[in-house]
């Protein structure tokens, strides 16, 4: 089932001099089973939007449909706790939430909160740790002994262990080196392709969006500016630039070449294909 926002607004500190409308009449349909990128500048409302998905924040106006639940403004949602287990939200720099004595215990913490027995929780934890590719000799170590990248993978495993149907990630690759970024994005891709999870990713990294995401939703000033599939979004780099977003290098190159008389089609997805076109058009002049 898709995720739908209908006329959702959210205001912080209502009634005080610090009142601030973070979301204004948001209307959004997120498709099930897709990887959707949520992009926008700092302060655009992305984090606020995303925290409505597992009812950490409740809408002041409007309705949210997620999985089989409805969250209406002014009402306390029923089955709130189980929603948290079905929609896994991973915050930015999640390594800061680790606290248990061992990695295994920390990852098992989530499932235990949702009623699993010790054995069941440990089983789920092991599965999740395998998914994130954490070596077994780390399982009984204290999370504090791990490297930054390993800590992050442990934290993500902690959410995956709850087996959520929807995965919401806030800047999952922030601070990672290129190798770590690639590993992380491949993991999410696998979770989507192999396990059918709906993935929502708040990110600034256009290269990642271009390479891995199906859809793009642009948030600006508290509402949705654009919501389209990634291909269409990057087809016209003027759209990106008008929103102060730097398009991926491949797209920039394509556009620059086309401006100078080349004829590179808009749906070029990778370097090899681009090189083919360039090579043909340069050689054809010889």
């Amino acid at each position, binding site marked *: 089932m898709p995720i739908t926002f209908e006329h959702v607004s959210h205001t912080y500190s209502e009634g005080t001099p610090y009142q601030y409308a973070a979301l204004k009449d948001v209307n959004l349909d997120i498709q099930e089973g897709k990887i959707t990128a949520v992009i926008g500048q700092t302060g655009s409302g992305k984090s606020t939007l995303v925290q409505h998905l597992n009812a950490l924040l409740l809408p002041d106006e409007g309705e949210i449909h997620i999985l089989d639940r409805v969250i209406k403004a002014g009402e306390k949602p029923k089955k709130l706790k189980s929603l948290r287990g079905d929609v896994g939200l991973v915050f930015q720099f999640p390594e800061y939430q680790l606290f248990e004595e061992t990695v295994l215990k920390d990852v098992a913490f989530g499932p235990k909160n949702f009623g699993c027995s010790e054995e069941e929780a440990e089983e789920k934890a092991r599965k999740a740790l395998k998914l994130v590719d954490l070596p077994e000799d780390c399982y009984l170590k204290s999370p504090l002994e791990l490297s930054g990248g390993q800590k992050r993978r442990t934290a993500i495993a902690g959410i995956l262990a709850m087996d959520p149907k929807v995965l919401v990630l806030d800047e999952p690759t922030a601070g990672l080196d*290129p190798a770590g970024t690639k590993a992380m994005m491949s993991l999410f891709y696998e979770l989507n392709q192999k396990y059918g999870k709906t993935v929502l990713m708040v990110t*600034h990294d256009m290269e990642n969006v271009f390479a891995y995401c199906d859809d793009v939703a642009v948030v600006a000033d508290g509402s949705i500016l654009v919501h389209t599939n990634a291909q269409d979004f990057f087809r016209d780099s003027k759209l990106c630039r008008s929103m102060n977003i730097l398009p991926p290098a491949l797209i920039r190159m394509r556009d620059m070449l086309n401006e*100078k008389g080349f004829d590179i089609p808009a749906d070029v997805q990778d370097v090899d294909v*681009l*090189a083919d076109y360039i090579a043909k058009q340069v050689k054809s002049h010889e």
Partner: protein
Amino acid sequence: MSFSVEKGTYTTIIGQNGSGKSTIAKLITGLLEKKSGSIQIDGLELTLENLNAIRAKIGIVFQNPDNQFIGSTVRDDIAFGLENHQVPQEKMDGIIDANAERVRMTKYLDHEPTRLSGGQKQRVAIAGVLAMKPEILIFDEATAMLDPQGKDEIKKVIMDLHHETGLTIVSITHDIDEVAASDAVIALNEGKVVMTGTPDDIFAHEKKLNEIQLDIPFSMKLENKLAERGIKLERYITMDGLLEELCRLHSNM
């Protein structure tokens, strides 16, 4: 590990997380003690006796914008280093204003850190460090925790400093574009230096870089692909350079 950095150059140090690059900045300023070998800065050996003299020559900007912001306002933070170096109080305002101007934070001098973005906080850190008149500037993954706008702000400041001052700049970074813009590159893997040279030299070895999980700029990737298809080009690190060459080939044939 052995390497040297020439005075007045802009050197970048690259490597995976865990390659040892995070330890280097702390070793150079004596925040960590080396187990063996020697570290020499400007001819001075790094020892306990020379520590303060050496620290006075080096300014370092760390990764976390919050955890190096000590003062309660921008002004106070820049003043912190001056206070430590016993600069007379009468001279402080002048120095603070000049360095805030340098990083374009003059409007924010009385702002508290909670009202500043990551990029702004890092700029304040740079101002604070410049105020102490170092000869060497070290950036320890200073853009890793910033959003794209913040990253751009800092990269611009670094480039300006490189062009306008004679400071020796060492930047430990992941950012390929920053590497491409530097004078010299040191590539690390597992605690050892595996490659040194100009960015051109380094990027020519795509395979070797991939082995240590590092990448090359897009323009060079494209060049390599074109070379596979029989189009040989000069090595262009930037997209504009490559573009020009391709246009030339396209039009005058």
